[in-house]
């Protein structure tokens, strides 16, 4: 077909469009939809019988509480707190059992290698490096995810989640984004990678990117153990787990505020634009379907995220083992790195070892504290301390921690770059290296600034 006849065809087509739809007024669209609806009404009016209203409208009563001015926000916070509590309390025992099983497996593997007369580095690299890191990540990540995701999916299945979006939409609208971001944010409490995948529900590309870039500001299951341990350290002596919970809730609220502020800044600068339209259905509540909840939460979410985490953790274990066990001038590379980072860490209220632990913890946030312990004690493999008292002894007495160190580390953990799995997911979802890099650099910049300002002002004011 020649170019001339093609443009002639196109002209003819455009004339036809103009005739049917003068001035692109969409009158044609309107009349089609109107006809469809009136015809549908005619048909349903003739054949569908509607039952009278039930005496007690559960949906209405429930919504009256859940979206009320008085109980709306408190009930959401309470529900979130209950889910955290179930997750943390319920995951402890299976986590410990899995860890025990994995470390039993590690001993067997070591025995096997010994029996095969394998050189010591083989055992170190493969068993103490790769196997141990994998075992750690799986045993720490799997149980909380296997509890949190079904809880979350239960709420989703019952129809509760759109009510959260309904309650919070105005805050997100003021930040220039979409109310559905409150859902992807809640998902982030379980796992930021899952939260980033959930951003697919936001239709506008601009708002979806903002939701992806800010998902990291809510602490995921991998960071909660760190936050809880540090909060416990802070209130040591006050001897209540309640005050530790208050600190953790405070951290969570700080994270939500940061999400809103950064979303607002992004929609004023890099991702300029006005909020898109918000039409959200509030579906009727319904009985949860247990089978579907389990398949969806375990297969679609838990195992999906775990697979990505394992793919990242295996090479990470190898690298961490090498850094901790290759010595230059009698000192491990890890210690060299920590010494080099030390002045910078001091500026941020922390020390070189903590920054090194965050750097090496990039693959998965749950290994930050084990790496820190390993480097403080110069053991060469990741370890765990079983009591808070032992932790305090090591941090405060031997490494000069103050309350400022703990607070700065909590804030850094809350705000710093997302884990490797999440970054990989952001890359897969956005298809852009630029946005993936920004997803790491924006939070890192914020974490550095916040910690720097806090540490310097605390020192200036003589608080430490």
């Amino acid at each position: 077909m020649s170019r001339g006849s093609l443009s002639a065809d196109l002209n003819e087509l455009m004339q036809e469009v103009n005739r049917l739809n003068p001035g692109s007024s969409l009158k044609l669209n309107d009349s089609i939809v109107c006809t469809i609806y009136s015809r549908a009404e005619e048909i349903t009016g003739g054949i569908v019988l509607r039952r009278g209203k039930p005496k007690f409208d559960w949906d209405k009563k429930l919504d009256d509480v859940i979206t009320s001015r008085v109980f709306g926000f408190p009930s959401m916070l309470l529900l979130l707190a209950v889910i955290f509590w179930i997750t943390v309390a319920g995951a402890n025992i299976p986590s410990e059992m899995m860890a025990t099983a994995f470390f039993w497996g590690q001993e067997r593997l070591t025995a096997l290698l010994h029996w095969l007369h394998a050189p010591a580095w083989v055992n170190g690299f493969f068993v103490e490096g790769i196997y141990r890191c994998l075992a750690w990540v799986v045993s720490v990540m799997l149980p909380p995810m296997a509890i949190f995701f079904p809880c979350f999916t239960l709420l989703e299945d019952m129809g509760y989640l759109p009510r959260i979006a309904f309650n919070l939409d105005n805050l997100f609208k003021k930040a220039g984004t979409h109310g559905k971001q409150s859902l992807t944010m809640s998902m982030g409490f379980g796992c930021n990678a899952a939260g980033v995948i959930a951003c697919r529900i936001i239709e506008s590309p601009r708002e979806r990117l903002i939701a992806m870039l800010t998902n990291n500001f809510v602490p995921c299951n991998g960071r909660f153990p760190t936050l809880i341990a540090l909060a416990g350290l802070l209130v040591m002596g006050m001897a209540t787990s309640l005050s530790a919970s208050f600190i953790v809730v405070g951290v969570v609220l700080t994270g939500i505020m940061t999400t809103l502020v950064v979303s607002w800044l992004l929609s004023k600068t890099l991702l300029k634009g006005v909020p898109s339209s918000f039409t959200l259905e509030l579906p009727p509540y319904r009985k949860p379907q247990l089978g579907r909840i389990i398949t969806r939460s375990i297969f679609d979410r838990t195992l999906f995220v775990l697979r990505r985490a394992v793919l990242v953790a295996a090479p990470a274990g190898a690298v961490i083992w090498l850094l901790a066990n290759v010595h230059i001038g009698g000192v491990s590379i890890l210690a060299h790195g920590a010494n080099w980072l030390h002045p910078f860490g001091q500026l941020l209220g922390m020390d070189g070892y903590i920054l090194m632990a965050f750097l090496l913890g990039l693959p998965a946030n749950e290994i930050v504290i084990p790496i820190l312990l390993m480097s403080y004690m110069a053991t060469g493999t990741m370890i765990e301390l079983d009591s808070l008292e032992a932790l305090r002894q090591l941090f405060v007495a031997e490494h000069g921690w103050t309350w400022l160190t703990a607070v700065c580390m909590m804030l850094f953990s809350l705000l710093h770059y997302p884990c490797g799995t999440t970054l990989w997911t952001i890359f897969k979802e956005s298809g852009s290296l630029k946005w993936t890099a920004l997803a790491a650099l924006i939070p890192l910049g914020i974490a550095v600034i916040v910690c720097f300002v806090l540490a310097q002002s605390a020192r200036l004011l003589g608080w430490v």
Partner: protein
Amino acid sequence: MGNRQLDNQADKIISLYDLPVGRSATVSSIQAEGIIRRRMLDLGLVPGTRVEALRISPAGDPKAYRIRGAVIAFRKEEAYQILINL
């Protein structure tokens, strides 16, 4: 339902946003353009449709409306673009 619009034509026309909670009215016209207009039509918001204002978010916006048996929330900006006969 289509005929009711004719009966109410003498009444005043306001935006859906101004419909008080608990009251209902019929759609007079949709002012929105483009994708938003399309979305609203797909929800069945054609002239003559009955809508009822149900509740307001605790944050003040959006509001939820009952439209053809479904509960749909619109932000202020969208609800302003839907005109109704009170």
